[in-house]
């Protein structure tokens, strides 16, 4: 998109871009204004926004609109486009983009970057575009210093933060200040609106203030420079500010307001009612404020929630210490906790029968014992003649790359060719077992596994298993991967089941997952109690104990957990012993 900017761009091409943008975004979609801003200068963008909304209300605007329409098709605004050109500096700018920057607290992010950057810098026009943070810096040396920091900063989840630097072809003017006369007028106006006893500043409907209109000053708070100016005045003159009223200022976004946290952090009451905020994401930009009272009614975002309760919960999530919302006292948090807004994730999902649960666990243990054994041909008998299998790795799977799985990965979002789509779906049990045999040798961690039983009938069982495994060979041996596997089992006869569908997803494990992998000494299957036994079972326990070297108690537990299937119990025991996960006490003979 950026490459379309710059002088000399033919009119026709630009129109095409605008048309295609029109097509892509719904009317009323919040992002339209910012996307258009990518093509136009930020000044022109703000003016265009204003045009779209206020033309009929403000006679001054009609004047400037005529002026703008003349220049509409020019990318570079020449001198006389806006009335406030005197302070503008035409400088070369660099745009810094931080993908997924919206995840981070703004001050933490900027401070982190600053700490790595040898040159002090001021981010200009910091804004959020979708989930990215974008800002500008003014000189090349700062930009290149920032570029060197790319991938150097780690966040709390140990992910590297990428910092992308590009020369901004928006060689537009960046006006960060109002003229001194304008500031003077603004300051006087704001003084009049300040209530010293309450430490409250009322900037409601500021653009219609008589004093400002009279002085031909366009105080549109939605514009970056105006909000910045207002905040500067607040910081200087009203540093103890507790309450700020921004009602009815046609605010579409709060990017400019996000600076408030550094300037007057004590603000406790904020009124944003009757504006044009469309998503609750906007509030994230000011969530570092410790608000006690907030007004939001009359914003489009209020209508986006399925219920009033959901709206309240979402706002409280952003501002946990909030006491009053839209004029109403909020009940203490404790009551709300009974109805959590997102149901807490839990491990166990089948409240169904224990038999089913143990059937699935049995199946998984038997399957993975062979899968991890080094020779997967033993799985031949587990599959139906015409079973299906496919494997996928995530598109951006990060470091280290999943080389060994890449060429088999079937992702229909990226792969459109029907022939290849069919090729990558393995069809008969021969093909499947061959494909599985080619994948690297693994060691699965059962204690990490969680099973979700998705669907069951008399004929079939569908469930998914998620967990981690260690890769024992390949380019990065010892690396821990995370997987999700969906099995569909069908009953072939009254006593046997086989796999008809098998879907495997492999990704890199997160640092937390890697850390906790293989850390639990024993899987949960070794935790049942000890009832009395029949003669036959006693014999089995003794034999098992002799063969394994474990004492009777542990041998019994092992057999019980495997439904008294000696062979299975033996396999499990062997596997766990190889992994070194059976504690010494299992082998201690009771005197």
């Amino acid at each position: 998109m950026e490459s379309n900017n710059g002088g000399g761009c033919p009119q026709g091409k630009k129109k095409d871009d605008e048309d295609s943008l029109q097509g892509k975004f719904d009317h009323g979609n919040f992002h339209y204004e910012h996307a258009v801003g990518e093509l136009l200068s930020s000044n022109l963008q703000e003016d265009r926004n204003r045009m779209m909304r206020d033309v009929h209300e403000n006679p001054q605007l009609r004047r400037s609109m005529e002026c703008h329409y003349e220049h509409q098709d020019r990318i570079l605004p020449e001198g006389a486009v806006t009335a406030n050109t005197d302070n503008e500096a035409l400088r070369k700018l660099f745009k810094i983009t931080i993908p997924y920057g919206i995840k981070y607290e703004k001050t933490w992010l900027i401070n982190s970057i600053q700490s790595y950057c040898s040159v002090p810098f001021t981010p200009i026009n910091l804004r959020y575009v979708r989930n990215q943070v974008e800002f500008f810096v003014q000189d090349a040396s700062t930009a290149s210093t920032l570029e060197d920091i790319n991938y150097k900063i780690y966040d709390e989840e140990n992910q590297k933060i990428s910092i992308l630097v590009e020369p901004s072809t928006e060689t537009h003017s960046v006006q960060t200040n109002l003229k001194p006369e304008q500031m003077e007028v603004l300051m006087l106006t704001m003084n009049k609106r300040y209530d010293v006893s309450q430490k409250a500043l009322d900037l409601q409907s500021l653009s219609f203030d008589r004093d400002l209109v009279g002085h031909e000053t366009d105080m549109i708070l939605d514009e970056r420079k105006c909000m910045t100016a207002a905040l500067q005045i607040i910081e200087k003159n009203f540093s103890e500010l507790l309450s700020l009223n921004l009602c009815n200022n046609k605010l579409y976004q709060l990017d400019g307001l996000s600076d408030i946290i550094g300037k007057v952090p004590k603000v406790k009451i904020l009124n944003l009612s009757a504006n044009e905020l469309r998503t609750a994401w906007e509030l994230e930009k000011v969530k570092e404020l410790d608000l006690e009272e907030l007004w939001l009614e009359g914003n489009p975002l209020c209508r986006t929630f399925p219920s009033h309760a959901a709206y309240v919960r979402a706002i409280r999530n952003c501002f946990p210490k909030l006491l009053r919302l839209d004029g109403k006292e909020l009940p203490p948090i404790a009551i709300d906790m009974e109805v959590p807004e997102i149901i807490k994730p839990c491990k166990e999902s089948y409240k169904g029968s224990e038999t089913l649960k143990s059937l699935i666990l049995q199946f998984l243990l038997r399957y993975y014992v062979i899968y991890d054994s080094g020779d997967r041909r033993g799985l031949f008998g587990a599959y139906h003649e015409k079973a299906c299998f496919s494997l996928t790795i995530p598109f951006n799977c990060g470091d280290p790359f999943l080389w060994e799985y890449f060429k088999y990965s079937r992702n229909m979002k990226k792969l459109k060719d029907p022939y290849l789509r069919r090729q990558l779906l393995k069809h008969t049990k021969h093909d499947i077992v061959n494909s599985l045999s080619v994948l690297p040798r693994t060691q699965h961690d059962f204690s990490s596994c969680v099973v979700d039983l998705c669907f069951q009938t008399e004929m079939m069982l569908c469930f998914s298993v998620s967990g981690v495994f260690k890769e024992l060979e390949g380019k990065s041996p010892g690396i821990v991967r995370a997987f999700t596997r969906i099995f569909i089992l069908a009953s072939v006869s009254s006593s046997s089941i086989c796999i008809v569908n098998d879907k495997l997803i492999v990704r890199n494990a997160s640092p937390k997952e890697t850390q906790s992998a293989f850390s639990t000494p024993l899987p949960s299957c070794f935790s049942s109690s000890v009832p009395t036994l029949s003669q036959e079972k006693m014999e089995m326990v003794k034999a098992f104990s002799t063969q394994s070297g474990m004492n009777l108690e542990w041998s019994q537990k092992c057999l019980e957990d495997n439904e008294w299937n000696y062979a299975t119990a033996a396999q499990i025991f062997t596997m766990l012993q190889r992994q070194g996960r059976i504690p010494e006490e299992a082998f201690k003979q009771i005197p």
Partner: protein
Amino acid sequence: MRKFRRDWSQEDYERRQGRSDYRHEEPQTSYSYRGGHRREEVVTPPLDQSASGSSMATSVDFKTYVDQACRAAEEFVNIYYETMDKRRRALTRLYLDKATLIWNGNVVTGLDSLSNFFEMLPSSEFQVNMLDCQPVHEQATQSQTTVLVVTSGTVKFDGNKQHFFNQNFLLTAHSTPTSTVWKIASDCFRFQDWASC
């Protein structure tokens, strides 16, 4: 890609020649064969019924099943996530009456419970990065045509941080003479980092 060339038959080669057409063949949110269907329904052209029930399932039939499964899956995923994000109240129309949802381990069964659940869930913004599907073998389904659809990507619920998620669906086909309507029989959703929530 080159690796497969020597396995091509003449038929495959000819199809490959026209390959560029396929790249742009996104399944349309098919208004052409909708008739009276509303947009919250996943509709595909009628199934090829001639081969069903035959125990001599040849590879040609399998190809048809795979293609059909792919088409249903793609259309379904487009409609499902758009409805989830933008028309949440209409989402339950995509589920069978007795469908089950397992959401991060919590079980929700039946349309009423599903309605309540989706009502309570904050508004969402889904981004699907991965999609795969498989036709489910009739041994398991006893002639009820079923497709396994698997997706993953990111989701942001209002007021919560962004999560990676994995989701899988079982879709079953309900045929009329003019079209096939697909509905969700089971839906299983989990955050990838559910354990640290």
